[in-house]
């Protein structure tokens, strides 16, 4: 494992393998942060690219006081917000991202990927039918009535599955999450073996 400084040094001497590896390691995390603000796939991709182009070209002159990871998060947030500003008219929600909110944004961004991974895990813990209803609702963007029709269940059951899913995921990824995860895990083992 290279330290942050070693990584930057390697990149400033144009070590592409290290650069590529850094990219692969951080791409998903940074993309999703940017996407959260730009709500646009192309812009998010571009923001991540811009950050890394800067790193490739100027890594020797970068003044990085914090960890590389939080530097990258901040850089991608700034790039994304700048893109939003230059796209005025296209996006109306930039009012949300005033300077005073930046700190909060940065803290949230740092943990966004981890939260997503936790949510994904929580989804896997849901009962199969409940999981299916949630995925149809969220990912296939199906209306509750459509889901009911397709799975041949009542709309009330669809609603129950959805509320149960939200409740469970909320519990698991929330503050009480760790404890619950362990509890469920133990339950799981008992049922499986």
């Amino acid at each position, binding site marked *: 494992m290279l330290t942050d400084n070693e990584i930057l040094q390697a990149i400033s001497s144009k070590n592409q393998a290290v650069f590529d590896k850094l990219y692969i390691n951080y791409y998903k995390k940074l993309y999703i942060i940017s996407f959260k603000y730009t709500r646009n*796939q192309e812009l998010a991709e571009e923001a991540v690219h811009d950050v890394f182009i800067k790193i490739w070209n100027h890594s020797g002159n970068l003044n990085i006081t914090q960890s590389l990871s939080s530097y990258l998060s901040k850089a991608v947030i700034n790039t994304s917000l700048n893109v939003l500003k230059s796209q005025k008219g296209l996006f109306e929600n930039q009012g949300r991202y005033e300077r005073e909110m930046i700190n909060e944004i940065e803290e949230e961004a740092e943990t966004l990927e981890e939260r997503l991974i936790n949510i994904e895990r929580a989804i896997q813990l849901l009962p199969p039918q409940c999981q299916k209803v949630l995925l149809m609702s969220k990912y296939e963007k199906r209306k509750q009535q459509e889901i009911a029709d397709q799975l041949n269940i009542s709309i009330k059951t669809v609603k129950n599955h959805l509320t149960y899913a939200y409740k469970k995921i909320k519990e698991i990824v929330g503050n009480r999450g760790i404890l619950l995860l362990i509890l469920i895990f133990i339950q799981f083992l008992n049922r499986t073996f």
Partner: protein
Amino acid sequence: MSNLNFNGQESYFLELITEEMEGVISAENSIRLKEWRLKSPDNETYYLDVIKLNEELGLLEQYKNLKPNESLEGLHKKLNLASNSTVGNKPKVINFSVQGWLRIAASLILVSATVFYFMSSNDKVLLKAGSVQNTYELPDGSKLVLNANSELSYSKGDFQKIRELELIKGECFIDVFHNPEKPFSIHYKDLEVTDIGTSFNVKLAQSQIDVVVNTGQVKLHIAGKASETILNAGEAAYYHISKKYIKKVKLQDSNYKAYTDHVINFNATALPEVVRTLESVYHRKIIIQSPNLNSRKFTGEFKKQNIKDVLKVIAETLQINIVSKNGVFYLVSAK
């Protein structure tokens, strides 16, 4: 960490929140939910947590589909770097301490993955529009506008011979490049819509598929049935997916293809209907905050304006106020 209202009450309001997020909440319940949120800061926090979770569920879908290696190739092009460096194909995974648990989970992942995993093998081309609509030109020169959150696919090899599209979800508008020797059709389950030189719109709605013909003529056909339904320009029909019948209807929504060109017409249209149209065209949430606005009517035409300008015009005409908060527009009585 008490076991506060962890059953009845919570479920009830959680259900209302999910209804609100889907935009199917009744006016009565909407008021009830608002009152509940105002009742205590805890309730409001709970509400915001669910909204945030909902947002992150949406992000998760994006996140899971990301392909670092493909993206890296794009970056290499911009930097004029070679793309053959041997970076492992391993995406970053936060280490999870309980490996055995992961193995158990893997079987569950399979269950869920089949729900939305698209077979990317063979020569299937999957077209997918995210939060905004996309315009494509198909290999035969036909034009396709895919609405936001919509998906369709076609087979690359076969498309040159038989022009067939498969609607997976959402809505699309197709302007067919006419070629009598190669019929053009779009399918969803048992329904086949065949063009006879035309442009038309296909929308997968709750339990039905809406077809509207803009120009020319299309033919609707249900697999295994002999009869066909012909639709001419300006005509509309829907296909009931589970009951499998086609019914011609009067074209209700003159703005059905506004998402393709942002040309919108309102003619003494009630405000809730105006809002519904704008939401579907611009994919933004708009809430009528004051119930007395529901009976107001608006007449006017918009051409390729952005939503802010559109709302400004409506607000000035109807003398109402617009408040924008967290990406949602609220329409409020001026007084």
